[in-house]
C-alpha cells in the first residue's frame, strides 16, 4: 500500500486544503499590508507559533485517545513560574538544569492527570477542569502573586529560546525536535499506534490486548511534558513570568488540532495536520494587528474558527460514512 499516493488522495487530504488555506490567508493579509510576507516576518511568525505547535502536539495525543486536556495552560503557567523563580534564586545554576526542572514539573503534573484518569476513573474533562484550577492556584501560592521580570533572569536562561543555530532561532529548533519525536512516536512505535486503537474503538483495542491504563498514563504525561517545556520557553522568550501566563491557551491547542483534521471523538488525525493547524492559528493571531483589527477580537475569532473547523470535520465524517454505506450496499 505504500508508495506515492494518487492525486485524488492528495486532493482529499486535510493537509492539502490547509496549505492552500494558509496561502490564501497570507495573500489576503499581504493585500492589506505588503510587508507581511517577508522572510523575516514569516520566521517571526513561525518562532511565535513554535510553542503552540509543541503543546498542540501533546494535546493531539490526548484527543486522539478520546480525551481532552484543559490543564495545559495552567501547567505552562506553573512550570514557567517555577523555572523562572529557580533561575532568579540560583543564577549560577546552568540554564539547562533549570530547563530540565521545568520539564520534570510538567511531566509530574501530566502524570498526575494521567493517574487520576487511569486509576481513579475520573473522566479526562473533569480531571483537567479541576487540575486547571489547582495548578493555576498553586502558581499564585508559589509566587505569592509576584512576577519574575527580565532583569531578574539570567542571560543564559533567556538564550534558551532566543539563541541561534544555523541562523534559525533555538525556539524553532525545539519545535522541530518535539514535532519529529512525536511524529515518530505516533507513526512508528507500538504505543503510538495503540493510542489510535484506543481512540478508534476502545472495546476492540482492549480485546486485542491494548492496556488502556498504560496509554492513558502515556498521553497525559506527554502532554504535561511538552507543556512543561513550553512553560520554560514561554517565560524565557517573553522575559517575564506572570501568574496568568497562558490562560486560555488550551482553546488554542484544541483549535490547532481540530483545524488540522483531528477528530474530537478520537481515533483519527495526524501530526502534520496539527502542525499546519497551529501555523494557521499563529498567522491569524499575528495578522490581526497588521490588518487593523482590535486584539480584543481574538477570543471571538478563535472560538468561531474552532466551531467552524469542527463543523467541517463532523460533516465530512458523516459524508464519508454515507459513502461507505452506499459502497457496501452496491
Amino acid at each position: 500500500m505504500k508508495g506515492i499516493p494518487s492525486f485524488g488522495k492528495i486532493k482529499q487530504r486535510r493537509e492539502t486544503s490547509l496549505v492552500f488555506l494558509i496561502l490564501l490567508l497570507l495573500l489576503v493579509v499581504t493585500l492589506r499590508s505588503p510587508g507581511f510576507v517577508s522572510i523575516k516576518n514569516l520566521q517571526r511568525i513561525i518562532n511565535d507559533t513554535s510553542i503552540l505547535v509543541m503543546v498542540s502536539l501533546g494535546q493531539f495525543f490526548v484527543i486522539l485517545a478520546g480525551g481532552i486536556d484543559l490543564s495545559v495552560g495552567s501547567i505552562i503557567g506553573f512550570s514557567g513560574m517555577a523555572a523562572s523563580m529557580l533561575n532568579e534564586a540560583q543564577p549560577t545554576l546552568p540554564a539547562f538544569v533549570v530547563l530540565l526542572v521545568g520539564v520534570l514539573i510538567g511531566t509530574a503534573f501530566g502524570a498526575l492527570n494521567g493517574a487520576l484518569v487511569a486509576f481513579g476513573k475520573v473522566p479526562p474533562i473533569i480531571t483537567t477542569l479541576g487540575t486547571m484550577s489547582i495548578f493555576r492556584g498553586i502558581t499564585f501560592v508559589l509566587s505569592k502573586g509576584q512576577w519574575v521580570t527580565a532583569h531578574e533572569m539570567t542571560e543564559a536562561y533567556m538564550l534558551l529560546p532566543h539563541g541561534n543555530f544555523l541562523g534559525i532561532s533555538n525556539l524553532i529548533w525545539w519545535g522541530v525536535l518535539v514535532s519529529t519525536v512525536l511524529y515518530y512516536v505516533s507513526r512508528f512505535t507500538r504505543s503510538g499506534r495503540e493510542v489510535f486503537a484506543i481512540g478508534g474503538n476502545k472495546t476492540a483495542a482492549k480485546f486485542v490486548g491494548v492496556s488502556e491504563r498504560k496509554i492513558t498514563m502515556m498521553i497525559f504525561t506527554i502532554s504535561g511534558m511538552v507543556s512543561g517545556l513550553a512553560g520554560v520557553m514561554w517565560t524565557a522568550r517573553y522575559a517575564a513570568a506572570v501568574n496568568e501566563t497562558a490562560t486560555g491557551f488550551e482553546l488554542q491547542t484544541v483549535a490547532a488540532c481540530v483545524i488540522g483534521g483531528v477528530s474530537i471523538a478520537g481515533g483519527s488525525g495526524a501530526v502534520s495536520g496539527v502542525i499546519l493547524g497551529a501555523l494557521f492559528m499563529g498567522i491569524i493571531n499575528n495578522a490581526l494587528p497588521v490588518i487593523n483589527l482590535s486584539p480584543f477580537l481574538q477570543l471571538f475569532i478563535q472560538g468561531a474558527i474552532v466551531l467552524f473547523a469542527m463543523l467541517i470535520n463532523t460533516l465530512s465524517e458523516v459524508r464519508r460514512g454515507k459513502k461507505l454505506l452506499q459502497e457496501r450496499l452496491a
Partner: protein
Amino acid sequence: MMLGTHNNRQETHKSDLVNVTRLINETSLKERMITLFTKWEVILGLLLILVFVYFSNLTPYFLNSFNLLNTTFTFTEKAIMALPMIFIIMSGDIDISVASIIALCSFAMGYASSLGADTWTLVAIGVVVGLAAGLFNGFFVTKVGMPAIAVTLATQSIFRGIPQAVLGDKAYTKYPQSFAYFGQGYLGESLIPFSLVFFLVLAAIMGFVLHKTRYGRKVYAIGNAKEAARFCGVQVNQIRFINFALMGLFSGIAAVLLTSRIGSTRPNIALGYDMEVITLVVLGGVSISGGKGNLFGVIMAIFLLGYLKYGMGLINLSAKAMVITTGTLLIVAVLLPGFLDSIKAWRKLRRQQKTSTVAN
C-alpha cells in the same frame, strides 16, 4: 481457604454463627449504619455540620443569622445554574460555556441599559439572550451531532468574545435604580434575600420536573443507557436539546441576578463559574457518566460549598485558596464514590468467601 481447620476450630464455630446470623439478618444495626453513612447525601450533611462546627469554633462571626443569610447572595447565581446542569450532566453531556453565556447576557443588558431601557425590558433581554445561547449550543450538539464538550469549548470563547470585542477594557456601569432589587433586595422587611427565595422556588420546580415527570424519568433513562432509551422510544436528541435550552435560560436568569448584584458589566464577568457549577453538581452526587444522583444532593452541595467558602473568607484565606479547594473537591467528588463502591464490593466479596468457607 483452609481457614481454621485444626487449632482454631473454636473460633470457626464463632464466626460460623456470626455468618449465619448475618445471612438471616442482612439488615443488622451495623450493616444499616454502614449503608446509611456511605450514602452520599448523608456524607454531605455530615460535612456541612463539620463546616459549621469547625468555623464557629474558629471565629465568633460565623454563626450569625444576618451573615449566614447575606452570604447566600454570593452563591445563589451559581446555585441557579446548577439546577439545569444536573439535567445536562445526568444525560451524559457537559456545558462549559455557561459563564460565557452570563457574560453575553450581561453585555446585552448593559448595552440596552445604555440606550435607556427600563428594568423589565432588561430582565427580558437577559433571559432571552440566555435562552438563545442555549439553543445555539443545543443545535450544534443535537442537530449537527458534535460532542458537547467540543461545542461548548468553542462557544465559551464565542459568547465571551462578543462582549470582549465590543467593550475591550471598558465596562457598562449604568443601570436603573430598581434593577438592583433582583440581586441585592430583601423580601419585604425581613432579612431574607430575594435571590435565595427565588432560587428555592426554582429548585422546587426543577426537583418536581426531575423526579415527578416523564421528562425527568427520560433524562435518567438517557443517562443510564442512551441506546436502550432510544429503542424504548425516548426521543434522546429532543430531550438533550431541551436540556441545553434550559441551561441557557437559567444562565440568563443568573446573569440578571449577578449584573443586578454587582451593578456593572465587564468582559471578565463570572469568569470561572463553569467549573464551580459543574463542581456543585458532581459534588452533589450526580454521576458524570450519567444516570445517578438527585436534586437534594446538589442542594446540599450548594450550601456546603457556599458556607465552606464563607468560612474560609472569614478566616482570611485568599481567593486562590478557594479556587484550589473547589478544584480539589471536584476531583475528589468523582474519585470518592468509585472508591466507596469498590470498598462495598470488597466487603461483599469477603463475606461471600467467609460464607463459602463455612459451608465447606
